[in-house]
């Protein structure tokens, strides 16, 4: 497919990385940490109940809670509140797995392939971390889906997919083929940016046509890697309000996720991912295959031991890192927080300081930059006033939180932070309303029943009283009759 076949993306930004950046595409493997931390929280931040007990020994791939598996074999030694890589800076219930170093795997032998994927706990390794099995199931509801493999790196400074494709092109293509077979489709569209020449060469050398993989090169525009803009560019389908890719019958999966699926179908659970570790100036980057649950500080120490630039950067900022890419990342203290499926990159050093915003002059630079055609300035006004209804009218849900508007705003307004705030406020409001509706119905029921009961009791009492009165009356009649009879009968 040529560039001419690609649908244009309105908005987006051409971001530049330092031209002399040194990206190390070797795939290093982090040593297995002695203690692995498994936060029991799903992607919607619901706390999960563990289904293992303290002291229980588990195998790699064994379920420890709904959707969470042990990344290696060992013993569950503690159930504690522990920090995790999330902007909330909260602590969450976490299982501590003391690994035994033997790394024994539990075999995954479910018959149905989707069950296998589910049992292997395959989650999206791109950004959101949705359950992959659920995604495929949803997309297949509409018949034969369209398969899009997303190898577009979302942000500069993240090179984990690039490294994977350069090092294991044949495994990637084989994974695509097994997914093609699983879904029963004819081919896969494999989207990749045109500046990843090394990865492209590696893939082309393996003859992707034999795997029914159609490689589509895209000019580099941020955020082409986000789901909605990518689908827009490949298929021309603009996702409607409140739609995800699966809702229009598109299975859009990150390239590393596709490999995870392939492994799951072969019986290997999803226990690791590739993490990019990059210096804050984006000059040096390395890629490390890491077990989930590995503490971030252990990973950083390993990274420093193989790359001197990262070691120097780490010495300068020993306490703070940025979790995520240069646009979506958030600042975090360097501690034993674990690596999760969504942790695609770590930047050494703190985030840039946030400048003081000034008033919005509605210059509409954000509208031009928005890749999903929203009016960020109107959404911003709605978010500041916490006017959720207005924010909905301006399609708050469509916003992909890419951060383009922040970068172009002449007034330094942190628009994306405002939209995150508004989205959370909206979720909160919806939860409150659902709870209120439920409580109201139950209360109405309660009141109606109590009223009915009181009424029934009153009626029953009245009936009883009437009966008693009647009985008294009839008793009096009898007495009177007896008295009359007595009177009539002369005393003998």
């Amino acid at each position: 497919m040529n560039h001419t076949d690609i649908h244009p993306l309105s908005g987006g930004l051409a971001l530049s990385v330092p031209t002399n950046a040194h990206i190390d595409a070797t795939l290093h493997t982090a040593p297995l940490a002695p203690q692995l931390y498994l936060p029991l929280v799903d992607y919607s931040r619901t706390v999960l109940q563990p289904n293992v007990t303290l002291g229980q020994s588990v195998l790699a791939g064994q379920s420890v809670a709904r959707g969470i598996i042990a990344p290696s074999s060992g013993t569950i030694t503690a159930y504690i509140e522990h920090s995790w890589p999330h902007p909330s800076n909260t602590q969450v219930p976490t299982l501590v797995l003391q690994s035994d170093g033997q790394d024994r795997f539990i075999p995954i032998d479910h018959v149905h392939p989707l069950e296998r994927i589910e049992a292997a706990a395959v989650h999206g390794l791109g950004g959101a971390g949705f359950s992959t099995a659920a995604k495929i199931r949803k997309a297949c509801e509409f018949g034969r889906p369209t398969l899009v493999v997303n190898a577009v790196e979302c942000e500069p400074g993240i090179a984990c997919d690039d490294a994977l494709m350069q090092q294991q092109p044949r495994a990637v293509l084989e994974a695509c083929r097994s997914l093609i077979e699983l879904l029963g489709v004819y081919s896969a569209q494999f989207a990749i940016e045109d500046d990843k020449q090394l990865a492209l060469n590696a893939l082309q050398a393996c003859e992707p046509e034999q795997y029914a993989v159609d490689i589509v090169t895209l000019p580099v525009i941020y955020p082409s890697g986000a789901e909605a803009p990518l689908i827009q560019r490949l298929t021309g389908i603009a996702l409607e309000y409140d739609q995800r890719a699966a809702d229009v019958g598109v299975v859009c999966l990150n390239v590393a996720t596709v490999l995870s699926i392939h492994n799951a179908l072969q019986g290997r659970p999803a226990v690791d991912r590739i993490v990019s570790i990059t210096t804050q100036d984006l000059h040096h980057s390395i890629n490390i295959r890491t077990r989930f649950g590995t503490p971030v500080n252990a990973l950083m120490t390993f990274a420093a031991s193989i790359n001197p630039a990262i070691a120097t950067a780490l010495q300068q900022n020993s306490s703070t890192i940025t979790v995520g890419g240069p646009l979506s990342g958030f600042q975090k203290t360097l501690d034993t927080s674990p690596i999760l499926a969504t942790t695609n990159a770590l930047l050494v050093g703190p985030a840039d300081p946030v400048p003081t915003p000034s008033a919005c002059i509605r210059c509409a630079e954000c509208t031009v930059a928005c890749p999903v055609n929203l009016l960020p300035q109107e959404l911003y006004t709605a978010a500041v006033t916490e006017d959720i209804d207005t924010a909905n009218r301006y399609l708050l849900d469509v916003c992909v939180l890419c951060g383009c508007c922040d970068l172009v705003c002449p007034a330094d307004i942190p628009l994306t932070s405002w939209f995150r705030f508004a989205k959370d406020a909206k979720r909160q409001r919806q939860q409150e309303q659902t709870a209120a509706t439920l409580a109201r119905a139950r209360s109405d029921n309660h009141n109606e029943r109590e009223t009915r009961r009181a009424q029934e009791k009153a009626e029953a009492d009245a009936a009883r009283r009437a009966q008693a009165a009647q009985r008294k009356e009839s008793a009096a009649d009898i007495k009177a009759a007896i008295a009359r009879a007595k009177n009539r009968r002369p005393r003998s």
Partner: protein
Amino acid sequence: MSGALTHNRLGVKRLKTSTIMSSVMLALIPGSILMVYWLGPGVLMNLTVSVLVAVACEALCLRCRQRAITPMIADGSIVLAAWLLALCLPPAFPFGPLIVGTLAMCVLGKHLYGGLGQNLFNPAMVGYAVLLVSFPTAMTTWTQPGELTAFNDTANWGSWWALKWHGVSSLGGSWDAITQATPLDHLRSLERQSLIVDVDALHSPPWRALSLAWLAGGLYLLVRGIIRWHIPVAMLVAAALTHLAYRFFFPEYSLPLLPALFYGALMLGAFFIATDPVTAPSSVRSRLCYGAGIGVLSMVIRTSSNYPEGVAFAVLLMNATTPLLDRWFVLDKRL
């Protein structure tokens, strides 16, 4: 929290608010110098008083609204608005009404809506409209270009000073000799009397040069990326087409196309007033629609109404449609 790295680290070029405002002011300088040169110290007095009063009023409003004063004045938006208002006023416009207009601009046009970025209508045009309906005679009495323009003559400054304080009567009988209605007014009265109009006799070179200066400033802004082309181009094309339509249907409007475009406030309006980011819509299509609306309306008002120039009212009318255009072209199209 969001955006761990800033724009300059990721190679994104962006303008600061103060850069936008100062670039627009820079683009206004050539035209303003020409105006002062042709029309004398009165223009300079207008500019000074309007800017000073506006800044003072802005500071007072911000203080009353409990907002930080210095950063909001330092961004230059209020100075720019006052400057634009002053450029629209006749040189002999008295101080009293000038102050009233500036206050209307600042309070009515801006702070009652919630300050910078919140106003629905272009503040300078609100001030202008208030003055035009309140002081119609003073607003349409222009001195002839080249009259009373000696800058090194203290007596001349004195007479301007008196003129600005005491109005027309201070000059006595000599007043009539140096004033005229606005060029377009003059033109129209000639047309109404069915006189043949000699365009060059309208002292056209100064006005034409002024329009060219605004055009040059506008092109500078386009090149700098401060404004985008959609609104000015749509406005000028629509204005030209409207004028041609008038000429076709009503042959008595005999002014040729180019003079019509280069007279009056059309160029100033197209590049400096209609492009005000706060009151203009956001997307390409809504901007084209907005610009075209201003172009058509200003020509219609200029030709068919009693007002000498239609740009101000056209801008205000189209300002009112901005939220609708944005909703229609950006959001409703995709639902």
